[in-house]
């Protein structure tokens, strides 16, 4: 489930500081008209919605998703960035080394440049594969958890209000 529209989405927004007055398309005139006045920017808001996020953030399932993401992204970013910086520095400070011929007219510089293209394509493929196999499902489950909890909270609140 990628989108939740309609009544549910609307009720989340009512209590959700994420969609503060400015971020919501103001003056759209439809749907948002019912939005309650927003508390002063940066002010405390009612406990509830954000407790769910704190709870989820501390859960083992989320920590696992986060560490999987970081374990891939941190070394990969460091790797390609260093490789790119090394390439630029070598091209500007050591043109002699870069000009050394390898096969025919192809020299070290050309191989290094094509190597940048190749490493970019490979890392893109590896990242997409890693995200698809190791993160997507767990992230979707967590998204559902948050959604369900928010809805549960919403229900109990409206029940109290009705009493």
């Amino acid at each position, binding site marked *: 489930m*990628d*989108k939740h529209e309609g009544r549910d*989405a609307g009720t989340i927004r009512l209590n*959700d500081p*994420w*969609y*503060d007055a*400015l*971020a919501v*398309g*103001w*003056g*759209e*005139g439809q749907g948002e008209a019912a939005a309650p006045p927003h508390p002063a*920017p*940066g002010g405390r808001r009612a406990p509830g919605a*954000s*407790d769910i*996020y704190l709870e*989820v*953030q501390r859960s083992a399932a*989320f920590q696992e*998703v986060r560490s999987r*993401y970081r374990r891939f*992204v941190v070394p*990969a*970013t460091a790797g390609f960035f260093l490789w*790119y*910086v090394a390439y*630029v520095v070598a091209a*500007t400070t050591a*043109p002699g080394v*870069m*000009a050394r011929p390898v*096969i*025919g*007219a*192809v*020299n070290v*510089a*050309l191989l290094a*440049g094509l190597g*940048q*293209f190749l490493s*970019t*394509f490979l*890392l*893109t*493929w590896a*990242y*997409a594969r890693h*995200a698809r196999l190791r993160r*997507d499902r767990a*992230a*979707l489950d*967590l*998204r559902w958890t*948050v*959604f369900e909890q*928010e809805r549960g909270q919403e229900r109990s609140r409206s029940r109290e209000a009705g009493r």
Partner: protein
Amino acid sequence: MTTEHQTLALILFSLFIAVTLGITTWVSRNRHGSAEEFYAGGRLFSPLENGFAIAGDYMSAASFLGISGLIALFGYDGLLYSVGFLVAWLVVLFLVAELVRNCGRFTLADVVAARMSERPVRIAAGISSVTVSVLYLVAQMVGAGSLVGLLLGDSGTAARTLTVVGVGALMVVYVSFGGMRATTWIQIVKAVLLMGGAITLTVLVLLRFHGNFDQLLTSAAERSGHGARFLSPGLKYGGDWTARFDFMSLGLALVLGTAGLPHILSRFYTVPTARAARRSVVWAIALIGGFYLMTIVLGFGAAALVGPDAVRASNASGNTAVPLLAAFLGGGAGSTGGAVLFAFVAAIAFATILAVVAGITLASSASVAHDLYASLKRRHARQRSEVAVARASAVGIGAAAIALGLLAQDLNVAFLVGLAFAVAASANLPVLMYSLFWRNFTTRGAVWSVYGGLVPAVLLVVLSPVVSGSPESLFPGVDFQYFPLQNPGIISIPLGFLAGWLGTVTSAEEADERRHAETEVRALTGAGAV
């Protein structure tokens, strides 16, 4: 360039506009004018469509004509640009695309302001986004003017002025009527045309050399007059240490700037989920990488077949290398085949500029209406619809860009693009990275990091040889040049990060743990994303 060329190019270009307008009206029937629709095209594009649109948004005339021209003139040093432009996409893919899609609604400021106190952060991010967009926009307008002067014959300044005004007016019409949906479709059509044109020319070049890349390189090196030096770095950036540091600075700005460009960030909001955002970046990387690989063949092909002397004679900075190559491959300057291919390439260049300009205008109108106007308007001011404000600001920004483009007609296009990347990397990237990944980041840190990158970047350019102190500068008569490099990135990017850190550690306010938790959970899982 004969009148026959001009008529053909004009016909092809009008055809392109007619087709895009047709598609736009067809896809936007039964659509109402909500903010969601105007800024994000209803968030209903597929990853494939968005991937093509990103590629169309990113590959400006500077890439198509500029890089292959640089390769034709300076050999290997032109290739350094394309490597930077491509590798930058790994930053976008790994650190930005999915998280920004999950956290924001329309602009960069949405992501940052979610954790911080709203107004100051939104104003700061809005100002830096508009600055980057206007710089980039002026570069495109100047490019349009000079390109048309070159492609449609030497009809003097009148044709130039007319083109800049015409391109500007067309883009305003597109953006203010069609919003993101029209912009996206023009970018998709343009990307398809651009790839088609590049593939055709590449195949024709390779056929000339019987598929032998080695032979292509050898004859390019021979014809250039530089021999083997043509195939190794140093012809353009190998001078003194100032030139070398200048290139390192540019390289840093290129690789870090892409992730802070507002018109690229806004593209991620046009797909329904973070997964779709990721897949569209994968498509974009495949298209952009493939395109830059082809520009290598085109550049060396132009050097080998047309020759650097003929290229330089037509345009000193090499911008006409690809059109000249097209005319040569079609059978030479006088022939019908040559005229058709030349006109085709010219029409693609037109379309390229129009598409990029539309994308940037839309992104900056979103920054003005969604961030600046919303934060600065008086509390009890008459309620106007946000979309109406965005439409009006698209017209305003279009007018400003036309005026600046006319004023700056003689400014170097590559410099303006490099500057836009440097400002984006200094002002937008640090604040984005800190708010996504740093638990203790505070409001003061966010504001400081935006201004701490923006102000030095702009100031260093004002003090650089670009503005004063050398014969090629903007004001050659005066000399207030105190900074030797043309590109400020190597100084201003670290300053942006430093200012964000400094602002955070010195602020009295504690970082809000709950809001950080919310940002982190939303960013990585997509919970509550629109």
